């Protein structure tokens, strides 16, 4: 006997299985939502599921930290959303019935999980749904809350993991930078300790940076080069450009780029001693290269300071020796011993060279170093001493002294200078004499009012003869006999009759040439010569008179120079 179920019983069975199937579906949907890490996807799945759970309609999902999502139906209107939000305050996190304008039934299902309350699932219907549909909606809301909690936990873990990864990356970069910096420091420290000098520093920085490296002194002169494509003629900036670059580098306190080069200055306090230069025409130098340059410049500063201090000591000791030689306070044996101690060969014949600056206000120290550089560069000599307005060099080689003077002019910022060269000294005891001769040569240039030039004592001619006359009083009486009234007139009237006469006679008595040299009109000079004849009572047209007056003028100049040299 078979039992055929009644149609009512069959329909109940189908409805029950539909409900169970829905519940089964919700469980699978829950797995899908929990597997998602995207809030929007979870919310979308929940929102699109509502309609399949019974005769209910989706209104929207309100997240506490995200506002309304998937708002539809009545919740598309802002005033209804605001009204519902006001009801949330009363409902708190438990959910419950909602009064939704235009709807007969409304409900807020809380989106909850053990981690907290995330918001509400809001639905509406034309009539209150059956208990089963409401149960499914509650399950859907609960599963949505759990899925949201899971997604956020996952998001925080991912964020923490990313932060940790970023921190690890930053730490690794810092460690790597420190290791590179340590390697740079170690390499340059080895250079400094080994005393490899400027060349060693340039070599180390070249190896650390793969760029050609130049070491320059403060003036831009090349001291060392390591790397390819060394220029045949090293380019030198103008004084103004050089000063601007060094000042910018000093002010920035770090390497600066200029015209395809990276400059790192080597300084001691505010004094710039030199510069480390990285050749970088493509401008590719990165932070590690700059670190290597900064370290290199520090080591270079120590090296240049050491060399500077050494040079200062040598200069001071050399200066002391020169002063004693010129004063004649050393006997030959002591002088040779002192010179040997300084590594200097005094047994070669020398001349004393006196260099005087025309500019009385010139910086003595700067003028001294200009002479020192020129003397070193021209091979004139390395033993120097400084006096007031005059620098003395002991020279062991004959030179083109005017070229030496021009070299000094090129180095000195104070302008032109006069160079006087004394006679040859074959032994130390002769240095005072050569010194006097050199000074006389300089002072004679001053006395005759000549332009900047270089004069050797041997070239002084009659001046040399006059200077060597044993009785200077006789020379002075001779000069005054011929020039006395004119000198008195010049002194009283601050006039230039003697200088005008001197130039006229030195120019071979040519009115035109002398007037041009004096920068006066020809008729002015003619008038002055007439006055000279009247005041002196001498006839300039007489050859003997003319000769004696020219000799008297040279004698007077010699006396002036001698007095000046003896001051």
């Amino acid at each position, binding site marked *: 006997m078979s039992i055929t179920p009644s149609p009512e019983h069959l329909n109940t069975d*189908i409805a029950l*299985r*539909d409900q169970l*199937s*829905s519940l*089964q*579906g919700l469980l699978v*949907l829950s797995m899908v939502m929990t597997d998602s890490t995207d809030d929007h996807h979870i919310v979308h799945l929940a929102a*699109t599921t509502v309609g399949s759970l019974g005769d209910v309609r989706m209104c929207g999902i309100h997240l506490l930290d995200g506002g309304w999502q998937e708002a539809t139906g009545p919740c598309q209107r802002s005033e209804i959303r605001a009204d519902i939000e006001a009801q949330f305050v009363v409902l708190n996190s438990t959910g419950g019935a909602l009064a939704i304008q235009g709807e007969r039934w409304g409900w807020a299902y809380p989106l909850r999980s053990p981690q907290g309350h995330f918001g509400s699932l809001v639905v509406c219907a034309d009539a209150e749904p059956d208990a089963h549909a409401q149960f499914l909606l509650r399950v859907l809301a609960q599963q949505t809350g759990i899925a949201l909690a899971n997604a956020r936990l996952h998001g925080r873990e991912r964020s923490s993991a990313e932060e940790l990864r970023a921190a690890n990356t930053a730490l690794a970069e810092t460690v790597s930078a420190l290791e590179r910096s340590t390697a740079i420091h170690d390499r340059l420290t080895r250079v400094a300790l080994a005393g490899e000098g400027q060349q060693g520093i340039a070599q180390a920085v070249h190896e650390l940076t793969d760029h050609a490296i130049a070491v320059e002194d403060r003036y831009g002169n090349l001291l060392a080069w390591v790397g390819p494509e060394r220029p045949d003629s090293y380019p030198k900036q103008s004084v103004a450009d050089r000063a601007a670059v060094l000042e910018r580098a000093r002010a920035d306190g770090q390497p600066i780029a200029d015209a395809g080069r990276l400059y790192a200055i080597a300084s001691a306090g505010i004094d710039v001693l030199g510069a480390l230069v990285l050749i970088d025409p493509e401008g590719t130098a990165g932070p590690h290269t700059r670190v290597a340059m900064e370290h290199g410049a520090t080591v270079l500063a120590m090296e240049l300071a050491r060399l500077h201090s050494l040079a200062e000591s040598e200069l001071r000791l050399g200066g002391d020796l020169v002063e004693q030689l010129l004063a004649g306070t050393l006997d030959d044996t002591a002088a040779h011993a002192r010179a040997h101690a300084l590594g200097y060969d005094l047994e070669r014949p020398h001349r004393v060279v006196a260099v005087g600056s025309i500019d009385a206000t010139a910086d003595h120290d700067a003028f001294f170093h200009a002479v020192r550089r020129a003397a070193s560069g021209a091979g004139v000599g390395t033993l120097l001493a400084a006096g007031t307005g005059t620098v003395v060099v002991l020279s062991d080689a004959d030179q083109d002294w005017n070229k030496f003077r021009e070299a000094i002019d090129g180095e000195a910022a104070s302008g032109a200078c006069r160079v006087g060269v004394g006679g040859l000294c074959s032994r130390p005891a002769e240095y005072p004499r050569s010194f006097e001769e050199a000074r006389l040569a300089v002072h004679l240039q001053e006395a005759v009012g000549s332009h900047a030039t270089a004069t050797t004592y041997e070239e002084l001619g009659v001046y040399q003869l006059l200077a060597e006359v044993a009785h200077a009083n006789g020379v002075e009486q001779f000069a005054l006999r011929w020039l006395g009234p004119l000198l008195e007139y010049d002194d009283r009237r601050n006039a230039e009759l003697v200088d005008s006469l001197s130039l006229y006679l030195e120019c071979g008595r040519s009115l035109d040439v002398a007037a041009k040299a004096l920068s006066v009109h020809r008729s002015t000079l003619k008038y002055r010569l007439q006055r000279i004849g009247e005041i002196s009572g001498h006839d300039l047209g007489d050859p003997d008179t003319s000769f004696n007056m020219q000799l008297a003028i040279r004698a007077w100049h010699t006396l002036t120079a001698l007095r000046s040299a003896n001051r």
Partner: protein
Amino acid sequence: MAGTSSRSLGMPGVSVEPGDHLCAFYTGQQERDDVMLPYLRAGLHAGDKCLGIVDSNEPASVMNDVGDGIDVDACVESHQLELWKSTDSYLRDGKFTIDRMIEFWEETVGPAVRVDGFDFVRVFGEMTWSLRDMPGVEYLAEYESEVNRFVPKYPQVIVCLYDLRDFGGGLLMELLKTHPKVLLGGLVFENPHYLSPDEYRSVRS
């Protein structure tokens, strides 16, 4: 009889029975391939007839990816492997109808068993075509229910592939009700309460 024994789905520890109709959920094309390609390879290795419809790429691309020591050209020549595009099957003539699609399966699965003598047929369909705005796509859930009427007729397994990124919760719920089994995350879930085609139709009417 070979046609009545369980079959490997191609994934470790996952097997299916002849007459199974599965809904396989995935996220993105890589996960689709992780389900589809092992399923095909297992079938081709076992000598099963393999029929499939792809939508997000070309059949040739799938054939190229099957590989794994299988002579795909020989499988295609012997008609062991047949793949179609969705526009030549589900959306043939620019629309979807349940009856025509069931007929399509009858015309492909039936001869494979009756004429070509395959013991077992593996069918799969990538269902993303149903997201397009085409006539008849709204009958998708009802079609899936009708497939349950077709699947016991032959020694076969039908796997329907759904991308979770694209389908809403409502449709997923319907699919869960119309598929006796669900493949999700490498696990097969049975739905003992699923509704037969007639029951589903009566509930929805």
